[in-house]
Structures are given as structure tokens and as C-alpha cells.
């Protein structure tokens, strides 16, 4: 079973929920798809890397001697990554989407695909937990190839820590999810962005449920009220306490030290399992 944890608004607690959830499931895998700023691995204190791999995407390499100036490649590219002047095309690699089309349309074989590094994937193990982190190179335009490589390490029950927002990176991260946990906080901004990711998971037709993090005021029911309009109930609520904030800021897993919260995360898994079956 693959459980994706997403939020819309950043800072609501995706990593908090996903790391602690993975921590309470035996033999599970934690996958950090927030490859622009992976931070989940900090909480697991992994010491020995099992493996680190470079992730590549393919970009065209042009052999000017073989180019006959037909411009088929330039006309084909819908991303305008190829410009033509003089006697051969010029590549703008940061605009290239690695579709491979230019190589296919070239009549003389002047275009070959070459590897371009976009980031790395690290796999660690702590006790029975497998930890997978993707890290995108600074300046790279697209996180998709790194996210895909991270997701290829899915094994057993997998908790997928998604990037914030509801754009390309998040969509890619939930593609293999059997269930989506939507983490929010009881604020107007939180609710606004929550509605955006509800739209997203409904579009993808993935079953989903809600977790409210940082709950303080029992009279603030803005999230519960919204969840009710969808005919659903909130899965779990996590309180907003100084203790939790301190532990998280120190890079510690609250489910290790607090047995009530440990039980809360276990109940989250139970509720999800029940809903799916």
C-alpha cells in the first residue's frame, strides 16, 4: 500500500506526519519526493548510506558535420529549445523537456541523446525502515526525473512525502498512491490551499482523507466544517503544543517519545487501511 502525504500550503506538517507514520509501521519505506528541499531524512538519523545514485535526463547532442540544415528538429520542438541560425541548430538545455522527438525526426542521424545530470537519490536503512531521499541539483528546471527515481524504490508499505503545492512535482509524486492523506492547519490559508489539493486528488481519482495538524482552539471548526461538506470525517487531529514544536525543531520523531501520539499515528494507519478495503 502506498500512502501519499500532501498539503497544498507549505508548513502544515507533511514531513511531520509522514516521518512519524513511517516510524510506526514495521518494515515500511519512507520516500521524500520534496526533492528541492528534502528534510525527512534528518529525523531518522541514518548513518550509513546503502547507495547514492546520480539521476539523469537525456538531452540532444548535435553533430554539426552530419547536419544538413533541414530544420526538422527546430520545427518539431514545441518547447523552443532548439534555434536555428547559420548552418546548424543551437540547443537551450534548460528549456529542453527531454521528449526525445528531435532525435527521431532528424533524417541524417546528426542528433544523439546524451545524459545530463539533474540530481541524486540516496537510500538508507535504519532498523527495518527504508529511507529514500531525492535531491535536485540547484538550478535545474524540473524535479520530475528525480521524483520518478525516488518512486522506483517503493517497497512494502510506502509513505510518500510530497512537495508542497498542487503543481507538476506534487502530481508526479502522487501517481503511485493508493491513498492520499491531506494535511492541513486550521487557518484560512490552510483551508484555501486544501481545497486545491482536494481538486487534484479527485481529478486523479485517488481515495483521500484529512489530517488536521496544529489544532489549538476547539471553537475553530473551519476545516471540520469543510470536510463535512464532502461527506467525510477527519482522520486524526494533532494538537499544537510547545513540546511537539521543540521536538520537531530538534529533529526528533515525536512518536518515539510520546506514546499517546505514537498510538495516534497507529490509528491513522488503521483508519486508512479500513477505508481502502
Amino acid at each position, binding site marked *: 500500500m502506498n500512502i501519499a502525504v500532501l498539503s497544498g500550503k507549505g508548513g502544515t506538517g507533511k514531513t511531520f506526519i509522514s516521518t512519524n507514520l513511517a516510524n510506526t509501521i514495521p518494515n515500511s519505506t519512507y520516500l521524500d519526493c520534496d526533492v528541492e528541499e528534502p528534510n525527512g531524512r534528518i529525523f531518522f538519523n541514518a548513518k550509513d548510506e546503502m547507495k547514492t545514485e546520480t539521476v539523469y535526463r537525456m538531452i540532444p547532442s548535435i553533430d554539426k558535420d552530419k547536419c544538413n540544415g533541414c530544420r526538422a528538429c*527546430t520545427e518539431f520542438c514545441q*518547447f*523552443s*529549445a532548439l*534555434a*536555428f*541560425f*547559420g548552418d546548424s541548430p*543551437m540547443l*537551450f538545455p534548460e*528549456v529542453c523537456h527531454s521528449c526525445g522527438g528531435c532525435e527521431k525526426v532528424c533524417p541524417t542521424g546528426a542528433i544523439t541523446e546524451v545524459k545530463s545530470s539533474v540530481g541524486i537519490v540516496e537510500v538508507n536503512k535504519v532498523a527495518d525502515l527504508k529511507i529514500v531521499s531525492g535531491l535536485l541539483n540547484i538550478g535545474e528546471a524540473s524535479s520530475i526525473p528525480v521524483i520518478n527515481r525516488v518512486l522506483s524504490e517503493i517497497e512494502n508499505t510506502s509513505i510518500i512525502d510530497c512537495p508542497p503545492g498542487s503543481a507538476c512535482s506534487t502530481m508526479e509524486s502522487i501517481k503511485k498512491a493508493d491513498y492520499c492523506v491531506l494535511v492541513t492547519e486550521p487557518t484560512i490559508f490552510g483551508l484555501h490551499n486544501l481545497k486545491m489539493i482536494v481538486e487534484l486528488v479527485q481529478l486523479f481519482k485517488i481515495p483521500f482523507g484529512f489530517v488536521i495538524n496544529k489544532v489549538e482552539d476547539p471553537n475553530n471548526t473551519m476545516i471540520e466544517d469543510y470536510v463535512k461538506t464532502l461527506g467525510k470525517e477527519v482522520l486524526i487531529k494533532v494538537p499544537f503544543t510547545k513540546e511537539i514544536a521543540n521536538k520537531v525543531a530538534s529533529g526528533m520523531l515525536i512518536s518515539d517519545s510520546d506514546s499517546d501520539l505514537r498510538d495516534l499515528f497507529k490509528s491513522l494507519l488503521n483508519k486508512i487501511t479500513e477505508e481502502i478495503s
Partner: protein
Amino acid sequence: MKIAMATLEENMETKLDQTFGRAVYFLIHDTETGENKFMINPAKDATGGAGIKSAQTLVDEKVETLIVFRLGTNAVKVLEGGNVKCFRAIEDTAEANLKAFKEGKLTKLEDFHPGYHHVK
């Protein structure tokens, strides 16, 4: 010689577009025939690579001179490759810019920005 400008409208009294890659129209003036041709910029709604595509359009039209307010670095690469000389526009009509260029009053455009990247 062909002189190009990025314009807001399709007439000579038009103001010039403050940008290049996603400008709506290009004016192409032919100094030999005196003709003024307006064309819609095929890159005006591009999600990416707009500077590259706009510059390619002008290179393909055999433009030799471009009068514009600003250019991104990707557009510049293509324009330089296509031997298009770029001059800084003045805050006035297309007609006035053309006149100023012919009188040698326009300065070369030498500083470029990193590109607006998807935002008009």
C-alpha cells in the same frame, strides 16, 4: 534592410511593447521598399522559450536590426547568432523610433536581463 520592433498595435502611431518574447505584434520595416509589415508574434502566448521563439521568427524574416526596450539572455543568443543588431527603443511611437534610428540617434542595447520565464 529590414528593421523590426515589438509593438502594441498594428499601426505606425503605436507605442512599442515594453517586452520582447511575449509581445503581441512585430513590425517589420523594409528600408528598400518603404513597406511596413505587421505580424502576430507566434510566441506571444508561449509557456516557455518565448524569447528563443520570437528571436527565431525575426532571424527567419531576415531582420537585420531590432529596436527594443529590453531583451532576455536567451533571445540575445539567438539574435546574435542570426546577426541581428539591437538598439535601445525610445518612449515614442513606432514612426518616431524609425526616424530616430535612421538619424543615428538610437544607442546600442548592451545590457540584458535573465529573462522573465513564463511571466508577462
